[in-house]
């Protein structure tokens, strides 16, 4: 492991990669601060750029964007009560009241220190957990992988649907359908190409991500007439106050960090849960841990109440890399985008990744530390200035997002068919989003489609066409039981509400 850490450090500490982390964190913070534009949009816009780099650098850049976006989301939660991303909603419960009391600087500092500590502790967990889990997952067979993918899709659908499980599952099936377009990987038989040569290689992953997130987000902003940059304008005008914490505040923050890190990391590892559930769970748990007197302060500017979700959401971000790096199965929409990008580089994440590409495996883990330091040292003092950059009116912001989306696709294929296909998918996605059909299950399913079919193929061939492979191996059976439990829980919830 020491050797791996050294390889990772060597790669992550190269000047180019440090610059990439810094750039990623900076860009991520900007996008994360804009309400509605989350890490998935930020990463989607970055993918075409990453293809110009080697895989390790590309992934480091995307990881930086991820952390930056989460941090940026916290900033708008605290200063203007407009969470940039769902994972920072709980941050606003106590962060915004603190800002209203004239302690905006302190709230930002607590958020930054907690994020730093949460991310760092979780990265240490990841350092030890990932190789051990990789060894365990080496014993996994095709049926286990197939079952795991079904579990991942079901869990993401359950958590991202906000009570609309059927809609989310429909989106997952749509994602799988889109992934099946093109030649069959084994027999090269064309499927769903309708004699169109442009479809024979399938639909590009970047195209689907850009269309469903970046482009449809831009169209949604126009459709609703909202101005995301108004948040940034408010931030730049706000008096931040001191960012120095007193002894009492430091003590409270330090008390909260370890327990919230553990909760965040565990929730992050679970498929589908991610930073939103992690932050809410940590907030709720913290309320039970503190004294009665402190409990009263929750919702009115409690230091514990701010530090807990901030620690947990960053810990969950690191945790979500565990299933991606060890099993090759993303646990969230954001890591699904990263998996898609890795597959684009020709790298298959999974238990063998840290043996076949140790520099990627370890450098990503190492870059997490560097990312946290960058966020703390560079981004915190720069918040008011970043906010000023952000005060770009939407009349310029939206065309820029559309420009980067169209150009990103054009530069990858130099084919106008892809541009038209992207516009078409973006229009459909905008319509679906209007009626609360969630997009993360679609992306996850699109990324997993090929792998899922491959593992089902192997499983069915081994069991001679029988579906008994789903319960023959104990590991597969346990995973399937979890999947059934999630579906049953959703059905029960639905009946209970009625």
């Amino acid at each position, binding site marked *: 492991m020491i050797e791996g850490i050294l390889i990772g450090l060597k790669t992550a500490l190269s000047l180019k990669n440090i610059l990439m982390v810094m750039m990623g964190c900076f860009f991520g913070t900007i996008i994360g601060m804009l309400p509605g534009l989350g890490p998935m949009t930020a990463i989607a816009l970055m993918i075409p750029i990453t293809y110009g780099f080697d895989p390790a650098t590309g992934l480091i850049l995307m990881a930086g964007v991820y952390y930056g976006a989460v941090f940026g989301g916290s900033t708008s939660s605290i200063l203007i009560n407009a969470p940039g991303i769902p994972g920072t909603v709980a941050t606003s419960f106590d962060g915004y009241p603190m800002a209203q009391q004239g302690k905006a600087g302190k709230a930002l500092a607590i958020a930054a220190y907690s994020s730093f500590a949460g991310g760092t502790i979780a990265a240490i967990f990841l350092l030890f957990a990932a190789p051990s889990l990789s060894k365990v997952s080496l014993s996994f067979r095709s049926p286990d992988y197939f079952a795991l993918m079904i579990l991942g899709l079901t869990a993401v659908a359950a958590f991202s649907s906000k009570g609309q499980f059927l809609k989310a599952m*429909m989106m997952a099936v749509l994602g799988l359908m889109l992934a099946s377009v093109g030649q069959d990987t084994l027999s090269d038989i064309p499927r769903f190409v309708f004699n169109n040569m442009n479809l024979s290689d399938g639909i590009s992953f970047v195209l689907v991500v850009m269309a469903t997130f970046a482009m449809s987000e831009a169209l949604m902003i126009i459709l609703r007439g909202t101005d995301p940059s108004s948040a940034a304008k408010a931030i730049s005008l706000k008096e931040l106050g001191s960012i120095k914490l007193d002894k009492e505040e430091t003590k409270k923050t330090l008390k909260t960090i370890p327990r919230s890190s553990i909760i965040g990391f565990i929730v992050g590892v679970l498929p589908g849960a991610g930073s939103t559930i992690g932050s809410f769970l940590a907030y709720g748990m913290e309320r039970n841990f503190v004294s009665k007197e402190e409990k009263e302060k929750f919702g009115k500017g409690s230091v514990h109440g701010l530090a807990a979700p901030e620690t947990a959401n960053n810990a969950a971000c690191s945790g979500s890399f565990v299933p991606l790096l060890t099993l090759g199965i993303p646990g969230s929409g954001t890591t699904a985008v990263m998996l898609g990008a890795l597959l684009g580089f020709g790298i298959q994440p999974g238990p063998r990744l840290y043996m076949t590409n140790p520099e990627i495996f370890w450098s990503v883990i190492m870059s997490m530390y560097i990312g946290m330091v960058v966020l703390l040292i560079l981004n915190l003092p720069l918040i008011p200035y970043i906010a000023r950059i952000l005060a770009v009116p939407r009349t310029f912001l939206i065309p820029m997002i559309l420009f980067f989306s169209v150009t990103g696709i054009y530069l990858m294929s130099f084919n106008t068919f892809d541009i038209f296909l992207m516009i078409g998918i973006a229009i459909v996605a905008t319509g679906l989003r209007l009626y609360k059909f969630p997009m993360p299950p679609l992306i996850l399913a699109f990324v997993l489609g090929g792998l899922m079919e491959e593992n089902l193929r192997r499983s069915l061939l081994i069991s001679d066409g029988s579906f008994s492979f789903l319960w023959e191996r104990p590991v597969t059976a346990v995973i399937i039981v979890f999947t059934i439990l999630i579906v049953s829980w959703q059905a029960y919830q639905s009946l209970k509400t009625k």
Partner: protein
Amino acid sequence: MKISSVKIISLLFFVLSAFYLYTAYQIQVFSFDENAPFNAKTFPIYLGYAGMFLAGLKIILPERLKEEVDHKVLDYKKVIFLVIIMIFYGLTILRVGFFVSTSIFLLLSYYFLGERRWKFMIIFSFPFVAIFMFLLHGLLNIYLRDPFLKYLGIIG
């Protein structure tokens, strides 16, 4: 009786899944693969049935939350304009070239979104695209087809 928009979308999804399933059955597989436990059409067939099943459930089951959207407050006009501009951009990018088509796309987008500060609109179109092209073409060696700039002799 008013049918909710979500039910209509689900019905469309049901039709799409049925069409997908029909097309999946039409996939020509090799004759030796026809009776294999798994061939090129197996997975799509399962997906078609899954799509129809889920959409069918959504249509049949009563709705817990009514997800109706107030279309009066939505700005469809601007979105349609933007989509038309994007299609126009897609049509011209290869024929006219990256520089002119992108600059015009940006300029028109700013205008249709309500921007009237011409100084900024010009700066963030032609010079902006020129810098972007220099970064791609000059620094990252990414070739961008541009007949117009080639005609002017700016790029080779």
